[in-house]
């Protein structure tokens, strides 16, 4: 059991940091430190292309497809340095972290050639069409329909919470392709062009005033027959495989973002005297400890090579970080005091900490609510009987 990284890995860390810092001090100075996913979207697409031009876009992918075949440790290091340098989140993170790996794992050679180069190059931005108004936690009750017509899939229905759909080029859609089927059976996984007449995007304004999420309506939207990943009826298997990619190496990079947030709270507490309050001190210490334990939990998860057993660190990770960050948002407001409730300008636009407070209410909902996480932990991790399904 060891804590750190090897000397060669630390060299790689310096290489990542030096390139990223140079970019954030130079050509892409204007996007440094942006904390929302929507601000300066066009510049951030250029940033995706800059990453690709220097082969930093998808380092974990095979070299054949624009990656570097990077080891898990190298991917973790890159993600950490990316966040540490204050680089804003990837507007194509769904393409790089979800769509790409799904195509690599389940796609045909022809599909790989069709999609991967565009994703790797930062030219094709992807979004995810999973949730529906009637299929949230119960994802398998998807109702969006797909039917085959003259060599094309024709799709009708509605997706919701499609993050960044308004700046995306493509969407992957879990669609019910077997008429009358129920639950996880009869679903298929389609890749669709967002920029076609049958797809309409409407933004959803969130409690922080931003609109990162969307409703996406499909009205006779179309894609070629060979845009299906896997076979007809494999949709659930592929969607579940994709969700497993979500718990990957980006977690440690995400934690560097959390570190920046906690540091900002610490700085605010020192500046306004809250750092002298014994209760605030306890909560800051708890936040620090929680963040450290998240880091070492992720290290355990990523060091684990025995995938035959349930990995407790991995299974509990989502609810752990989401709950931690929600508490951090509350701590931020207690440190800031009433002044934290005032926005500087005329617009309903928030500085990082009040925005953290508001945005973090979604952390315990998206990607599986805390309640669903507890079901998963109790059922998969502890072998408790499954929740009975209703008929409605």
């Amino acid at each position, binding site marked *: 059991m060891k*804590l750190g990284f090897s000397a060669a890995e630390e060299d790689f860390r310096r290489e990542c940091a030096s390139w990223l810092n140079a970019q954030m001090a130079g050509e892409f100075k204007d996007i440094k430190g942006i904390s929302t996913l929507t601000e300066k979207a066009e510049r951030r697409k250029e940033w995706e292309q800059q990453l690709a031009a220097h082969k930093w876009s998808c380092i974990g992918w095979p070299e054949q497809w624009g990656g570097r075949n990077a080891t898990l440790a190298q991917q973790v290091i890159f993600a950490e340095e990316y966040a540490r340098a204050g680089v804003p989140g990837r507007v194509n993170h769904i393409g790089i972290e979800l769509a790409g790996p799904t195509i690599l794992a389940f796609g045909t050679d022809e599909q790989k050639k069709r999609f991967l180069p565009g994703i790797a190059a930062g030219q094709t931005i992807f979004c995810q069409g999973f949730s529906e108004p009637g299929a949230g936690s119960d994802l398998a009750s998807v109702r969006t329909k797909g039917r085959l017509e003259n060599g094309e899939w024709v799709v009708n229905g509605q997706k919701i919470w499609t993050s960044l759909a308004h700046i995306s080029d493509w969407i992957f859609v879990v669609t019910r392709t077997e008429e009358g089927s129920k639950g996880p059976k009869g679903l298929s996984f389609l890749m669709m062009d967002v920029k076609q007449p049958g797809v309409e995007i409407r933004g959803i304004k969130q409690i922080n005033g931003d609109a990162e999420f969307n409703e996406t309506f499909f009205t006779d939207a179309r894609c070629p027959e060979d845009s299906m990943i896997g076979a007809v009826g494999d949709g659930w298997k592929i969607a579940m495989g994709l969700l497993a990619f979500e718990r990957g190496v980006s977690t440690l990079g995400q934690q560097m973002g959390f570190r920046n947030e906690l540091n900002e709270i610490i700085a605010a507490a020192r500046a306004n005297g809250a750092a002298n309050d014994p209760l605030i001190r306890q909560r800051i210490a708890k936040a620090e*400890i929680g963040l450290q334990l998240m880091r070492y939990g992720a290290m355990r998860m990523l060091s684990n090579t025995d995938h035959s057993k349930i990995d407790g660190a991995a*299974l509990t990770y989502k609810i752990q970080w989401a709950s931690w960050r929600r508490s951090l948002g509350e701590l931020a407001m207690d440190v800031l005091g009433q002044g934290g409730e005032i926005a500087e300008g005329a617009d309903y636009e928030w500085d990082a900490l009040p925005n953290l407070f508001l945005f973090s209410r979604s952390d315990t909902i998206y990607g599986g609510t805390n309640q669903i996480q507890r079901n998963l932990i109790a059922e998969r991790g502890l072998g408790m009987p499954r929740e009975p399904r209703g008929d409605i």
Partner: protein
Amino acid sequence: MEFAFTEEQQMIGETAKAFFSENATSERTRKAMAADGVDRDLWTSFCTELGLSGIAVPEAQGGAGLGQVEFAMVAEHAGAQVAALPLLGLAMASKALLAGGTDAQKAKWLPEIISGSTIAACAGTDDLVVDGDTLTGSFTLVPHGGSADVFVLGNVAGAWVVMRDAAGVSVTSHTTMDQTRPYATITLKGVAGDPLADGAAALQAAREAGWICVAAEALGGAQETLNRTVAYAKERVQFGRPIGSFQAYKHRLADMMIEIEQARSAVYWAACAVDEGAGDAQLALHAAKSFAADTYFKCAGDMIQLHGGIGFTWEHDAHLFFKRARAIQSMLGHGNWHREQVATMILGDAA
């Protein structure tokens, strides 16, 4: 990234787990609870047959020459069964001697302590008058102090080895809530102590070893409360269903697991940081002690609640975990104190 047990470490863990789950039975522990809180047969076989008592002691002193990670694995499994053993005293006294003892003290005491023939306890106090190496004062709340044959005792000025049977030593054992680790008050009146070469280093090493020991015990205890409650949840039927099928119940089990997984990261981060001499070892130790203790208490309390009435009986083992957990929360610095140390590292002293 290798933040996972090596094959050798896994074998040590499996050996310790099998030993304690087979031998540290409820029946034997309860027999020890009715006496001085030490299962002597278990202690002898742990020290001699199993040979894990000196796991973190260098080979030159008769140990296995491994580190705090391996010791924590042993303490985790001992804690899982709330074994009535003077393991904390062994951990603290042996590390104190290693860090601050003279060569002669190490040569004399470490083999005796590791062999189990001498039970050691370790404590510090503010109430000690030192005249040369003649000591007068008292040490309260010494874990297993009533069972110890030798003490490593100290204050800000130094540390000394004191024999239980030396002239001027009196020991008062207390009826203690956690009967598996009863406290005693050690009173010294003009006692001749054998001074350690570096008392400050000895006491610091003892504290660190103590934090790792109780944090690891807490981790093991917490995991065991969850395991036993999970088993109960599957077998107990009410309203025609196993009670574990109710969300109000299973979500509490999930919450226990979420805390335990973090406590596991904390304990092995701290043990590894100490072994590697990492810069954040102190942060890790404070995190591990405070987090694991609170996790254990939460889980042991939940164990009682989730067992219903049977969990409140003397006959059921839930109270053994609950009382050990409560004791660990208070000993060697309360969680609030440890968190204040972390706050001071981050924020500086409060104005």
